């Protein structure tokens, strides 16, 4: 294995861990962790067809409007391209709304970038695959 391949493999593992850390922080509405994982100029396109940045999304989470009962992320491919990593996969989440709980099956593409030696999420696109009503569970 070349040094480049070794580095790419190490970066893949790092991003895999960060992807899970970010998903856990989303589930817990842990804005302190998200603050460090998200780049200041991050852009997100959601399943509601709304494009938002870091500041707005942190405000959204702090306001308590995003309520997740479960949130699982399953990366399918993680491609290292120098100081950029494209991670694609699927997510299953259970969203609590005012009137019901919904289970969402989505695909995602996350773009991570290395800045100052640290990886941060720079962009994210989420597409809806399927949505169904779910029973509230603990």
């Amino acid at each position: 294995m070349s040094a480049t391949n070794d580095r790419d493999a190490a970066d893949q593992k790092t991003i895999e861990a960060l992807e899970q850390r970010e998903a856990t922080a989303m589930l817990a509405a842990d804005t302190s962790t998200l603050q460090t994982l998200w780049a200041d100029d991050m852009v997100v396109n959601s399943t509601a067809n709304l494009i938002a940045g870091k500041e707005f999304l942190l405000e959204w989470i702090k306001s308590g409007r995003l309520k997740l009962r479960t949130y699982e992320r399953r990366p399918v491919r993680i491609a290292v391209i120098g100081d950029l990593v494209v991670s694609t996969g699927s997510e299953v989440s259970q969203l609590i709304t005012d009137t019901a709980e919904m289970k969402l099956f989505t695909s995602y593409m996350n773009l991570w970038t290395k800045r100052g030696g640290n990886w941060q999420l720079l962009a994210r696109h989420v597409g809806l695959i399927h949505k169904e009503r779910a029973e509230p569970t603990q």
Partner: protein
Amino acid sequence: MHGDQEQEEPKILVVEDDEDAREAMVALLQMKGYRAVPAGNGREALDYLDQAAAPDLIILDLWMPVMDGWHFRSEQIKNPRLAHIPVIVVTALSDRADVDANEVIIKPVDVERLLTRVSHYCRREPTS
């Protein structure tokens, strides 16, 4: 539909058939201190406007069941009580947004741009 509340905040009617998009838009407007009222299509919107005080702004999708955005807009313009209410059309139909509206925003919607334009048409600043 939600009932009116006796508050000072600008009121915005969100007419959108996609539940996710409608709920998200209502929630973001409420987070910014606006009173946001949802309607699932043009018919529901007209029914609401028939019995409620006029909103400061209408955010209107075009492609909807029952009554689409074009039909709603033509009915609104015909009604002297409603014709003056500004309308921001929000649509994915970038090549078919041939509608008489104050503004057209193409989906996906940039939240910052939307809030800037909402603030412009509502004139009054929300409370938060």
